[in-house]
């Protein structure tokens, strides 16, 4: 067993363990921290695959941004120290079904996909190439998803402002 | 003008910060301005002022004689009950009985160095010493007897 496989399994364990703990943790703040570990593991996986740019973006966006945001909102809800309430039976069932369904889709996708090595030379994942690809309007360009994602983020931003606005005190 | 005010603020702020840094920078580069006294090392040269009130002492002369008549004026003057004078009756050569001090007990741990006992003393028997290193390991050591053993009252002091 080579070092690289060992590292892969360690990363996988961090990702999966973090994910499972995030779901099962009793306290919501701890959940957020376990989620952080899971996301860190994913960033590590990107590093492992030599996608440094994606890894750094993963850290900036998910760890520096999303998790901090989540922690902030946890702080602001004032119940961060208490154990979370047990979910209702109905929602447990629904989410279990959803999880099983998603799992099934992923497994079937993996099973049915024939992993054939491409004959095209791979594009080097440098910043320059990623930037070109991201903003190109040609056939395999990502300008449309890119813009859609930014619209989504804008909507999320406005939404969070609306939620954060203090409701007017009823006199 | 908004922009003028904006940049004016920035200019003034940076200037004031640099002026402040100049002060600290000056002292950083002028180490002769350092005022620290290295206390236990300079013991030999460290001289306290004459009037500095360190502790109450009772001076004795070469013949082991002090000036305290045991009048207890200091004991009354002390606001904290620091001083306790224990007297005894002593028979002089001419057969007269006289009040003499047996022990001049001074509780340094109670003393606030207010100097009132020294002012109150009619015969200048006690003075303030300049010693300030009073730390001891046992509080009992702070209870002092100021008159030396077998000391006598100085002739002519009544």
């Amino acid at each position: 067993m080579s070092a690289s496989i060992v590292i892969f399994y360690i990363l996988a364990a961090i990702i999966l363990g973090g994910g499972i703990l995030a779901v099962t943790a009793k306290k919501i703040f701890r959940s957020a921290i376990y989620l952080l570990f899971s996301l860190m593991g994913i960033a590590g996986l990107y590093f492992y695959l030599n996608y440094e740019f994606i890894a750094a973006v993963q850290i900036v966006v998910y760890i520096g941004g999303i998790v901090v945001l989540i922690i902030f909102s946890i702080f602001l809800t004032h119940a961060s120290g208490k154990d979370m309430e047990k979910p209702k039976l109905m929602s447990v069932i629904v989410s279990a079904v959803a999880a099983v369904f998603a799992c099934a889709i992923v497994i079937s996708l993996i099973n049915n996909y024939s992993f054939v090595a491409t004959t095209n030379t791979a594009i080097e994942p440098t910043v320059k190439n990623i930037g070109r690809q991201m903003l190109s309007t040609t056939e395999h360009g990502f300008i449309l998803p890119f813009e859609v994602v930014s619209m989504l983020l804008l909507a999320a931003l406005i939404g969070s402002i609306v939620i954060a606005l203090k409701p007017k005190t009823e006199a | 003008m908004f922009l003028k005010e904006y940049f004016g603020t920035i200019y003034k702020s940076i200037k004031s910060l640099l002026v402040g840094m100049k002060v600290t920078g000056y002292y950083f580069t002028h180490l002769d301005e350092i005022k620290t006294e290295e206390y236990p090392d300079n013991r030999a040269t460290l001289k306290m002022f004459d009037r500095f009130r360190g502790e109450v002492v009772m001076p004795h002369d070469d013949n082991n004689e002090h000036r305290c008549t045991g009048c207890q004026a200091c004991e009354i003057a002390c606001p904290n009950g620091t001083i306790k004078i224990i007297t005894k009756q002593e028979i002089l050569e001419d057969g007269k009985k006289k009040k003499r001090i047996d022990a001049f007990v001074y509780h340094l741990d109670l003393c606030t160095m207010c100097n009132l006992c020294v002012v109150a003393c009619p015969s200048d028997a006690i003075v303030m010493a300049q010693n300030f290193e009073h730390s001891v390991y046992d509080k009992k050591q702070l209870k002092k007897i100021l008159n030396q053993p077998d000391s006598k009252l100085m002739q002519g002091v009544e």
Partner: protein
Amino acid sequence: MRGLIEDDYVTDEGEFVINIGPQHPSTHGVLHLKVWLDGETVKKVQPHLGFIHRSIEKMSESLSYRNFIFATSRMDYLAAHINNEACALTVEKGLQLEVPDRAKYIRTILAELTRLQSHLLWWGCTGLDLGAVTPFFYAFREREYIMEIMEETCGARLTQNFMVPGGVMYDIHPNFQKRTKEVLIQIKSKFQEYDNIMTGNVIFENRTKGVGFLSKEDAISYGVTGPTARASGVSCDIRKLIPYSAYDQVQFDEILGTGGDCYARYMIRMHEMKQSVSIIEQLIDNIPEGEFQAKTKNVIKLPKGEFYQRVETPRGELGVFIVSDGAASPYRIKYRSPGFSNLSALPLMAKGGKIGDLVAIMSTIDLVIPDIDR
């Protein structure tokens, strides 16, 4: 009382109660402030006192008129000399004793030196409270010179107890005048440096300007005195209004501010230091010859009656109220300490500010906790 305390812990949704003190770096002693917060914003402050109460007033009732003075050194330990002076003046008032001019001059000079060192320490501590550590050491350098003068003449650095009813305990030390003049030159040369490192600093200005506003009306109704009140425009300098000791012999200005905020209070004290320097300069060369102490009886007994004397300490007006029944020790003593009244205005000033503002306000009203609790 019990009900009141229980009510304190009832909080609204979203309120956050923190206890600042009794052990806290910026309360300058054992003051306990209970602070209701909304995020960082202070909604309400409630000072809790009494952690260092030593019942100096009650203690003084069993001491003779000569002795009770020493206890006041422990009240406002940064202005021990002025506290002592207040007591001595009250006793002299009761005895209708005329104090020799020389004693008056010495008292005034020492009082102004005390004010200078107290303000210097306050200046350093204000820097410390706002997060700048270095000014503290610069202030202490100059303060050290003044302490040496005190030590040489009075025999002690902080709790001088140099005052006796009728004058001062000893004559001044032969070096006193020379040394004082040297120190004044030294201090005057450093005022510019103080301005450079603190007063003009943009962060300091932002931290203090418009923070902790106290209106003139509030200052009067809360009984605030001293530089804190003068910053709000209340003329309350006892040295000017009811001159005692040698203050009628000197020219000086009562500094009045208008801002009522922390910056105004800061500037008042900075200017007061310059005024103190000028007062000492006017007096130091003109100390009249003569006795330094009026003759008093061995046991001082005040006539039956009530006597009140006010003096201006660095923090404000200190009043000493003595009720005498004709015995050798006072029947009742009451000190009207400046810190207590000044602190009472803190909840008003701190409301609506941030925690950082609370610290700035506390340091600019110059709290000395033993003075508040006595």
